[in-house]
C-alpha cells in the first residue's frame, strides 16, 4: 500500500463521490418528493403546483401526513382492478416469454461455438431499433384490415377479419415481442455454461430425453429462468406504451392509470400516490431480483 498525500486522497475519493451525489440528487431526492406529494392535499397541490419545499423541516415532514390520496385509491375499485390486471397481464406475458424464449435460448446454447456470437448479436439487434417503432409495426400487422388478416383471409383460414388490435391478446404479443431479448439472454447465459456430460450420463443410464430435460436441464437453468422472468415481469407491470397503443381503452393497467391521472386529470398528488402503489407492488420482485443479480455477479469466475 502506497502512502498517499492528502490531495491524492481527495482525488481518489471523487471517483465514488461524483456518481453518488448525482444519483442521490436526481434519483433519491425526487423519489422522496413523490412520497411527500402523494401524502399531500390535492387542493393545495394542484398544478401549476408550487410546493413550498422546506429542506430544513425533515422532521415536520412526517408530522403533516395526509392519507387522503391513498383513501381515494382504496376507495375506488378502479385502482384495485388496474393493479390486479397489471399483475395478471405481466404474469401471463412472462409465462409466454418463457415458452417462446426457452427453445430459442436452448438452440443457441446447443449451436456450434463459432456461430454463437452471431446468434447472440441477432437476438440483441432488434433491441437497438426504436421500441416505439417496433410496437407501431404491430399496429399495421394486427389491424382489422392489417397484414395478418389479409394473409389469413387470402389463405381461406378465416372468413371474417379477426379482432386482435385493442384487445389483451395484442398486449401479450407486444410485450412478448419487445421483451424477448431480456428473457433469451439470461437463459442462454446459464444454458451455455451447462455441462453436457450430465445429459450423456443420464442417457447412458437409460433415461429418456424428455426426462433428462426435466430432471437435469430445467433445474440447472433455474437461475436464468428466475433472472429472465423478473427482468421481464417487473417492467411489464408498469408498462405504458404497449397497453396504450395495442390494448386500446379496454385494457386496464396501472402505468396507463398513472399517465392519465397526470396528463388528463392533472391530479399530481393522485398520480404520485399511484406511483407509490406501483412501487409497493414491485418492491418484493425488485428485492429478489437484486439478490439474484448480486449472487450471479459474485459467482462469476
Amino acid at each position, binding site marked *: 500500500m502506497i502512502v498517499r498525500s492528502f490531495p491524492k486522497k481527495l482525488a481518489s475519493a471523487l471517483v465514488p463521490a461524483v456518481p453518488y451525489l448525482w444519483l442521490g440528487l*436526481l434519483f433519491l431526492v425526487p423519489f422522496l418528493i413523490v412520497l411527500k406529494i402523494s401524502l399531500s392535499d390535492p387542493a393545495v397541490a394542484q398544478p401549476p403546483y408550487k410546493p413550498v419545499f422546506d429542506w430544513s423541516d425533515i422532521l415536520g415532514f412526517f408530522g403533516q401526513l395526509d392519507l387522503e390520496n391513498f383513501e381515494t385509491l382504496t376507495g375506488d375499485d378502479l385502482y384495485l382492478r388496474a393493479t390486479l390486471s397489471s399483475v395478471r397481464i405481466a404474469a401471463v406475458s412472462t409465462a409466454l416469454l418463457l415458452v417462446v424464449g426457452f427453445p430459442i435460448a436452448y438452440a443457441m446454447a446447443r449451436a456450434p461455438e463459432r456461430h454463437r456470437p452471431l446468434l447472440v448479436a441477432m437476438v440483441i439487434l432488434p433491441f437497438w431499433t426504436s421500441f416505439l417503432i417496433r410496437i*407501431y409495426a404491430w399496429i399495421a400487422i394486427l389491424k382489422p384490415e392489417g397484414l395478418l388478416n389479409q394473409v389469413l383471409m387470402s389463405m381461406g383460414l378465416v372468413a371474417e377479419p379477426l379482432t386482435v388490435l385493442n384487445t389483451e391478446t395484442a398486449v401479450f404479443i407486444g410485450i412478448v415481442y419487445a421483451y424477448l431479448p431480456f428473457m433469451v439472454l439470461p437463459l442462454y447465459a446459464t444454458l451455455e455454461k451447462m455441462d453436457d456430460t450430465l445429459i450423456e450420463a443420464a442417457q447412458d443410464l437409460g433415461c429418456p430425453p424428455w426426462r433428462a430435460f426435466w430432471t437435469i436441464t430445467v433445474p440447472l437453468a433455474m437461475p436464468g429462468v428466475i433472472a429472465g422472468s423478473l427482468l421481464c415481469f417487473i417492467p411489464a407491470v408498469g*408498462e405504458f406504451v404497449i397497453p396504450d397503443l395495442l390494448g386500446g381503452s379496454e385494457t386496464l393497467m396501472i402505468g396507463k392509470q398513472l399517465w392519465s391521472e397526470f396528463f388528463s386529470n392533472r391530479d399530481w398528488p393522485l398520480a404520485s400516490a399511484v406511483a407509490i402503489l406501483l412501487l409497493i407492488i414491485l418492491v418484493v420482485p425488485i428485492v429478489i431480483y437484486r439478490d439474484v443479480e448480486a449472487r450471479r455477479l459474485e459467482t462469476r469466475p
Partner: protein
Amino acid sequence: MTRRLSVFNVTALVLGFAFLYLPILLLVVFSFNASRLVTVWGGFSTQWYVALFRNEALMEAAWVTLRIALLSAALSTVLGTLAALALTRYGRFPGRTLFTGMVYAPMVMPEVITGLSLLLFFVAIGLDRGFLTITLAHTTLTMCFVTVVVQARLMTFDRSLEEAAMDLGAPPLRTFFSVTLPLISPSIVAGFLLAFTLSMDDLVIASFNAGPGATTLPIKIYSQVRLGLSPEVNAASAILIGIVAVGVVTATLLSKRSALRSRRSAH
C-alpha cells in the same frame, strides 16, 4: 465441441428470428409504398421520404433528440464509468449498499415513476421543463446501464497489468490513463452506444420532462401514431432502422479488424 443441431432446435431458431425480424422488415418495405393506405401495396415510391424531410416539425424534433442523446450519453458514460470503478475498486466504502441500490434501481424502476419523480423534483427546484431537464433525466436513467456494462468488464480484468505499471513507478492516475482505460475502452464505447440508443428511444421519461421549449422525436411519433398510422412515420422509422443497421455493421467490422490486429501482434 461442435454438435449438429436437431430439427427441433433449428425450427426454434428460424421461427424465433422470423418473429423478431419480420415486423421490422415489413415496416421498411411499406415505407416505399406509393399508396396512402399503410397496409395496401400501391407500387414503389420514395414520396414519403420527401414529405418527411419537408416536415419541419419532425426534423426539428429529430435534431433536438439527437443533441439530447449525444449530451446525455457523454455525461452518463463519465458518471457510469466512475460508478463502475467505485463498485469494483473501492471495496467497502461507507454507504456502499445504498449506492449499489441506487445504481440498480433506475434499471428496474418503471419509467412512469422515474419520469414523474424527476418532473416533480425539477418543479420543486424551479427548473423550467425543456432541453436541460430531459438531458438530466436521460443521464440519470442511462448511467446505470453504462455502470453495468463497464463493471462487467472490470470484473474480468487482469489486475496484474496495473500492478506491473505501478511497480515500474507509474503514479495511479498515469496507470489508469495508460493501462486501465485502453483495456476497458471497448466496454466504455458499448456503454456510450447503449446510453445513446436508450435516450433516442425514450418516450415516457421525455414526455414527463418535456416542455414547450423542447419536443423529442418519440413524443412527435407517438402523437402521430395516436391519430392513426402515417406513411411519414414509416419513412422516419425506416431511416432510424437503417442508421442502426449501418452502425452495427461498422462496429462489427471494426471489432473484427482490431481482433485480427491483436492476434497478429500476439504472434
